[in-house]
């Protein structure tokens, strides 16, 4: 499992007209997230509030982490952040940085988002020793003595005087599974 954007096979339903057109999620464009659940027009689409709360609840990042960003959905459940205020829809290949995948039981952050915003995380962060960090980067799974939450963790190591996130790990049953996408794995 990687967080590559493999696109979606949903059909393009531009032929629709009327309010139903706006109530569907379409794969070829970016749509702004509604501010709250109450503002939601498209079924299943997460609200901005829910996405921000998820980062705060899961990783204890500062509540204003995404204050200067507009949030967008493209494809089913993939949420992107852009530091610019635009009205949607925006029919482009990529719009900002992909933050996470929603619309499934366990929301999953991307490697890119964890590297970009995870430095400020204060919860569900595991800091690995150097040899374990290298194995994680190579894509190896490893046993982990961890008494925190199960699920997706920010996996980090010490580098040049600070703790630096490498990517996302999935912790279950005493094991840490590397979620580093295949194209980003390295043997250092």
């Amino acid at each position, binding site marked *: 499992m990687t967080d590559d954007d493999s696109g979606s096979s949903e059909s393009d339903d531009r032929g629709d007209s009327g309010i139903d057109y706006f109530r569907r999620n379409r794969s070829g464009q970016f749509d702004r997230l509604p501010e709250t659940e109450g503002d939601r027009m498209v079924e299943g689409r997460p609200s901005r509030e829910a996405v921000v709360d998820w980062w705060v609840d899961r990783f204890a990042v500062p509540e204003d982490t995404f204050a*200067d*960003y507009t949030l967008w959905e493209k494809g089913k459940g993939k949420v992107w*952040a*852009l*530091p*610019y205020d*635009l*009205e*949607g829809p*925006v*029919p*482009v*290949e*990529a*719009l*900002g*940085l*992909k933050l996470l995948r929603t619309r499934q039981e366990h929301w999953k952050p991307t490697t*890119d988002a964890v*590297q*970009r915003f995870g430095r400020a995380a204060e919860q569900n962060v595991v800091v690995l020793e150097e040899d374990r960090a290298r194995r994680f*980067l190579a894509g190896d799974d490893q046993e982990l003595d961890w008494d925190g939450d199960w699920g997706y963790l920010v996996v980090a190591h010490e*580098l*040049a*005087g*600070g703790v*630096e996130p*490498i990517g996302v790990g999935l912790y279950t049953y005493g094991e840490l599974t590397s979620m580093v996408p295949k*194209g*980003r794995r*390295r043997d*250092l």
Partner: protein
Amino acid sequence: MDALARYEPIIPEFDAFLEACERHLPTTVRVNSIKATRDRVVDALEAEGIDVYGRDWNSDVLGVATGKPGKTWPYVHGWIHGQEEVSAVPPAILDPQPGEVVWDSCAAPGGKTTQIAAAMDDEGLVVANDDNLGRLSALRANCDRLGVTSAAVTNTDARRATLDPFPGVDAFDRALVDAPCTCEGTVRKNADALEGAGASASRNLAALQSDILERAIELTREGGTVVYSTCTFAPEENEAVVDDALADGDCRLLEFDTGLESSPGITEWNDETYDDSLTKTRRYYPHQNDTGGFFAAKLEVTA
């Protein structure tokens, strides 16, 4: 090197130039200020046993004593981007500011796009376009690894690009046209670069280059900045293209100084003459700064 012989009348110290073109290019990286500081990058590279040396003109460009900077922690974290030193020049000339809307018309693989975003503190909107779908994946991958949030990636022919995908955006504040070219200036990293190069190949590309530059000027607001650059020595792709844009009347050339040694653009080539202001453009030769070759022009949009 035969393809370079025609430049003997215009390149100073021509023998030193040819000699430099035969030498291998030093490996350089650019510090990605979105994710790291120069000090942390230097610390982390030196901890991996890699010697690092600074370059005077730009504190974010570092020479590294390894052929494989991609196999280091700073690369994995997106703290550095492997980028030839002279290719960091056009974004420096463009000088984009936080919050602006900037067009990178021929953006893949994204070294300059990500440098533009970093110069803007990753605040605003960088529309990174490329017409080649294959190269678009490299552009996206570089933006992702470097943690760029401010880029919108588009896949259109730059000659026919519009602002339609971006409701509410009326014009770009700045635009970079780092045009497709014969790439003669990359001969130090790619010995095949001169195959097929020559006056006729250059003339064939000039129409495309002119059309993209013209489109960039049209899409940029009055008072905005357009930078035109190539990695070739051919006047047909450089001064002649900018001269065309000046003749259309909606822009003027500005002087600039990057801190790197360079030569002024030329105003005569074979049977052609160009506007006198073409001396405000700059030519970067391999023997001047131990880099690849480059050409850059800075234009102000006047209408």
